[in-house]
């Protein structure tokens, strides 16, 4: 596989082919590796914007999964470029409104998924734009973030609430995906969009639990955090179910390790950080 700029546009094209199948990892990986090789993601977004990939719902949906993947796994510049291109991404939701869209028999049903995906991506990028501390698209756990938030409790509280809103968005989108999976039809493409959501939701989950814990040790007054704790428990349950649903899909469970959460919500008063291991 080549690694030059010409190869990048080939990889993008192949990753977003018109067939209703999961985007090939090989081509997605080529895009990700390119951003690291060149330390830049300008070219990647430039190619997307000048493509005609948004005329077809299947291709547009594939493009959104590709963008999500590159933001997650690519060089940090992908996140920055993503933030810069928020309004363009937002405009993609309008593309699915019908008129511009070439509809074909089994392709519909994607328009709702596309709108939901765009909504999620935009909220994610907004979050990253406001919280530059999270330099990483996958929310890989870093100690210092929780330290920052205990130094400034108000800001920490705010960050947790926003993380929770993002987690709600993941939850909502994945429900849409599950609801759109129909018996007998080819669901590989829809299922493949769950892959980045698994790692994303687990990263967010780890951040929320450790940040709530860190704040908890700082504050003696228990009542203040009751609301947060209640929300943590709700989200824990929904995440538990989400992972259980994912585990039942063979394509997913063989491809990625699906985190196994304990049935009971985490103990938020524990002093020591006992974040479950992947």
């Amino acid at each position, binding site marked *: 596989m080549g690694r030059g700029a010409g190869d990048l546009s080939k990889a993008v094209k192949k990753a977003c082919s018109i067939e209703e199948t999961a985007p090939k990892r*090989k081509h997605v990986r080529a895009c990700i590796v390119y951003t*690291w090789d060149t330390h830049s993601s300008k070219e990647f977004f430039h190619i997307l914007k000048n493509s005609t990939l948004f005329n077809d719902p299947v291709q547009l949906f594939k493009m959104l999964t590709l963008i999500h993947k590159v933001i997650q796994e690519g*060089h940090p510049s992908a996140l920055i470029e993503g933030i810069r291109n928020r309004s363009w991404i937002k405009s993609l939701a309008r593309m699915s409104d019908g008129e511009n869209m070439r509809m074909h028999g089994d392709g519909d049903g994607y328009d709702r998924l596309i709108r939901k995906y765009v909504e999620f991506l935009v909220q994610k990028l907004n979050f990253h734009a406001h919280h530059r501390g999270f330099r990483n698209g996958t929310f890989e756990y870093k100690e210092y973030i929780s330290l920052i938030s205990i130094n400034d409790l108000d800001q920490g509280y705010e960050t947790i609430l926003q993380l929770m809103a993002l987690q709600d968005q993941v939850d909502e989108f994945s429900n849409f995906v599950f609801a759109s999976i129909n018996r007998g039809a080819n669901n590989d493409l829809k299922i493949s969009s769950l892959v980045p959501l698994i790692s994303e939701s687990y990263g967010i989950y780890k951040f929320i639990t450790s940040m709530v814990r860190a704040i908890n040790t700082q504050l003696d007054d228990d009542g203040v955090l009751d609301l947060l704790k209640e929300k943590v428990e709700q989200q824990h349950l929904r995440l538990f179910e989400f992972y259980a649903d994912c585990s039942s899909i063979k394509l997913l469970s063989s*491809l*990625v390790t699906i985190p196994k959460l304990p049935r009971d919500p985490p103990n938020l008063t524990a002093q020591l950080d006992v974040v479950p291991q992947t």
Partner: protein
Amino acid sequence: MSNQFVRSMKNVVKGYSSTQVLVRNATANEGTGPNIDLLADIAEKTYDSADFFEIMDMLDKRLNDKGKYWKHIAKSLTVLDYLVRFGSENCVLWCKENLYLIKTLTEFRYEDENSGGVDQGQIIRVKAKELTALLMDDERLREERRLNNR
């Protein structure tokens, strides 16, 4: 047999150095994994800076090979894993610098027509995941290298 012959011809025609030939043999598209003597040889050579770059260039090529050559990728990960533990400190630095090459292989997939749709990617996914975990855990890595270099 003929594979080996073709490879030795290629080694001559493309003018690979003896170090590169070692790496090519260790990551060849054959059934068996690289043997331990070969791995130790390569690890020894990483202490020479000219050899080091040749080794890493070749591994870089192999890691980014097509899915059809999944054995190249699997074996390159085996070699890298060995080098990180037994090779020069430069190997560790190189791997950290290029972690994305390894990390992005954790979702590698390849289905063979010959094997009847069996996913050959599993071995690569596991190896990539383990190597990534090792590289991200400085303490464990330091301890491993300390024990190995005695």
